[in-house]
């Protein structure tokens, strides 16, 4: 049994990375009703781009940016034909895309190490003389910095006229089109942005783990992210992050079970069953997820809450 604190910190780091994936899927599915079942593909692209560039000693800021741009660009390219499909066909196409991209990486050895993947990826921040635990804390700081940035971006979008257009498209595409919105352009743009965020998550993942291989990017990754969004509450960014914590925490704790309870059954199977149970319970009793979508007008958003607080602080400082 590993050091429990390290195990917990590792879970926190993972939850942060998956929180970004969850936010990106929330943007696509929760706000725009784009059933992107190919999430893992863009995560993988980001991870591989980062792996290659990090091994060439590029700084993190550069390869993280390139990884998001490449993932975003591929997202845009795939969205152009895929978005012309109906919702359910889009889902199927995207699952297939994820598998195809994984197979390409796996079989084209010259591209990125084939089945062996790439290893020896240096971490983004290297500080000499840190203990393993301290290095983990540095990683967490980096990951959560990126998570907060993504959260802010998603919140700004949700609380803007742009977000209002996305919601309109989600609820009724015909209405959006009849009222002057170029539905296709908005969808493509959202898809590209969601993919770029996934690419960034992939870059963080690659430098955190230190190695990438095709086996890390199975469709189960996509399904985990879906679970996070469904459990947390679609169209609620806080919910998306909360969902990431929930699912990751649940995965980890159910994995721990096997060390404490002698079970007659494979813990992995148990984990799958428990996860299914969790999803069914939440969807049954709380179909809107843990955190509901809020119906607030734009002018009652974050800013309105912060302004009086700011004023109070100002008067308090003056007196």
């Amino acid at each position, binding site marked *: 049994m590993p050091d429990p604190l390290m195990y917990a910190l590792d879970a926190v780091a993972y939850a942060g990375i998956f929180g970004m994936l969850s936010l990106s899927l929330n943007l696509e599915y929760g706000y725009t009703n784009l059933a992107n079942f190919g999430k893992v593909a863009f995560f993988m692209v980001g991870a591989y781009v980062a792996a290659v560039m990090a091994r060439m000693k590029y700084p993190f800021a550069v390869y993280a940016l390139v990884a998001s741009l490449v993932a975003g660009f591929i997202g845009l390219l795939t969205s152009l034909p895929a978005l012309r499909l109906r919702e359910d066909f889009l889902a199927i196409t995207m699952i297939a895309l994820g598998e195809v991209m994984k197979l390409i990486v796996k079989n084209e050895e010259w591209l990125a190490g084939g089945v062996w993947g790439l290893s020896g990826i240096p971490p983004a921040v290297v500080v000499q003389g840190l203990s393993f635990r301290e290095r983990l804390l540095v990683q967490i700081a980096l990951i959560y910095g990126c998570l907060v940035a993504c959260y802010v*971006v998603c919140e*700004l*979008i949700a609380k*803007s*006229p*742009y*977000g*209002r*257009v996305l*919601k*309109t498209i989600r*609820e*009724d595409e*015909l*209405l959006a*089109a*009849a*009222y*002057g*919105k*170029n*539905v296709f352009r908005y969808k493509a*743009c959202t898809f590209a*942005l969601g993919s770029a965020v996934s690419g960034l998550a992939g870059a963080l993942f690659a430098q955190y783990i230190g190695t990438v291989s095709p086996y890390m990017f199975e469709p189960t990754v996509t399904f985990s992210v879906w679970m996070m969004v469904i459990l947390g509450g679609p*169209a609620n960014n806080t919910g998306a992050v909360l969902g990431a914590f929930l699912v990751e925490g649940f995965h980890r704790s159910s994995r721990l079970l096997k060390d404490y309870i002698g079970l007659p059954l494979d813990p992995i199977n148990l984990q799958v069953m428990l996860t299914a149970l969790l999803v069914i319970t939440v969807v049954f009793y709380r179909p809107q997820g843990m955190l509901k*979508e809020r*119906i*607030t*007008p*734009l*002018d009652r958003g974050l800013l309105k809450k912060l302004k009086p607080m700011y004023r109070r602080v100002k008067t308090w400082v003056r007196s």
Partner: protein
Amino acid sequence: MGSILNTDNLVKRFGGLTAVDKVTLNVEEESIVGLIGPNGSGKTTLFNVLTGVYRPDAGKIFFRRERIDGLQPHQVYIKGLVRTFQTPKIIQKMTVLDNVMLAVRNPGESLLAALFRRRRWMGFENRLRERALEILRFLGLDKHAYTPASELSGGQMKLLEIARALISEPKMMLLDEPTAGVNPVLAYTIFDRVEELRKRFGITFFIIEHRIELLMKYVDKVYVMHQGKLIAEGGPNDVMNNPDVVKVYLGSV
């Protein structure tokens, strides 16, 4: 005054069914024109073709002397031709106010502006909100501005549809059964508002309506549609005395 909307032998087929059959019509600027006909005669389909939801199989559409057939719905909207829907398309997970405001093209609807230039569109948004509130007041919905749209009654949803169509200051509005499911008093109010809008802002109206007596009190001209074809046109009295029209309506009862 010239014509604002006219079509030339417009055809729309669904498989073997010709839902709109060689429709040629002409709507004068600043007029109120009615469109009546039995259920399934193709009225809504005609609106869908006019607004770019369906591409016509044949024929031409001119709006303010410009060809608009083949344009996408959002492009037709930008030209100033706006429509409402027979079953109100209300976004339940938004407030009534946002349901209205979403109709206006807003500088904050670009991704970059949403992220980086919030000050720029917030001013616009504030002015837009005032205008939306004014329109809601005009239609008697201002008390509900901040409630979720799902809490509105059927009649109020119809009013909300009109509010949304109004806010972009269109040249012409296509109303698909604006009084369906609305109580008689409110139905008259709606038509009074239509007339007022025509007078004050010069908006042209083309209205599908099943309440014929009500419609006839307000329109300058009526078209009658039957099995995809226009079978009569003219002033309210001419049309109501037209034997073809009488036959269609008696036949369908």
